[in-house]
């Protein structure tokens, strides 16, 4: 009987904790709506473009250096974190607010997916040997 009561109490606490966290996130999202969302979005958009420029410059044939790869991963992590937050904020914003700055949640989602794809390309669990096999097969026409 005591165990059942204890479990019920724990469930209440968990729900309260979740509600508190959800409320906190909601507060943060509310503060970042409007012009600030648009500003963050356009800054992020440009940061992505600048990242792509850097990527194109450094991911050169012959292989990027370990430092390149380290910063590549760091930048992607940062951009993805901001991107996911923006997507969430955009979905919570009113259509009028979004229309004012021509922001569409599906465009942010596509951006985020593009970044995730980059992460899969460079930061994966495949060995160089495995990848060489794929390249050999594809480029020799055996695949």
């Amino acid at each position, binding site marked *: 009987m005591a165990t059942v009561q204890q479990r019920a109490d724990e469930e209440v606490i968990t729900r309260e904790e979740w509600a508190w966290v959800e409320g906190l996130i909601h507060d943060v999202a509310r503060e970042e709506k409007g012009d600030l969302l648009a500003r963050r979005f356009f800054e992020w958009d*440009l940061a992505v473009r*600048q990242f792509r420029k850097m990527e194109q410059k450094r991911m050169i044939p012959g292989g990027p250096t370990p430092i390149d790869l380290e910063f590549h991963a760091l930048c992607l992590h940062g951009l993805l974190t901001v991107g996911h937050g923006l997507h969430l904020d955009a979905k919570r914003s009113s259509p009028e607010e979004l229309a004012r700055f021509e922001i569409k949640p599906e465009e942010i989602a596509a951006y985020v997916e593009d970044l995730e794809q980059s992460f899969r390309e460079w930061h994966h669990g495949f060995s160089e040997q495995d990848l060489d096999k794929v390249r050999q097969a594809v480029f020799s*026409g055996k695949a």
Partner: protein
Amino acid sequence: MARPEYIARLHAAKYDLRFCLRSEKPEMLRKYKKALEDACLLSGYSAPALEAALAMDFFEWVKQERLPKPQPERTELRKLLTHQRHLFRCEQPFQGGAAAIFEGLHREFAQTSLLHHDGKAGIT
């Protein structure tokens, strides 16, 4: 070794996705996914294996195709920056957001993005 046509198509779809206009992103993503699906069928390899194996070849392809650089030139940025102070009624360059997070990135690019967007949207 020769690059198969389906890999060139995949690279082209990725280039379009990376450097297209923001409004075109969802459609370009759909096209890239289709090209990747086709490449998987033709090669017999999984999407993650192909993406990882061909990551470097993409940049080689971009170089071979002599595709234009995606960024505006610095002179163009300077021209655009003359309107910066009107943006969002801000007098100072923006302090928060990605430009501040990524200290190594040029603030000018973030500002120009806003200008570029506003120019397109007709916001003065």
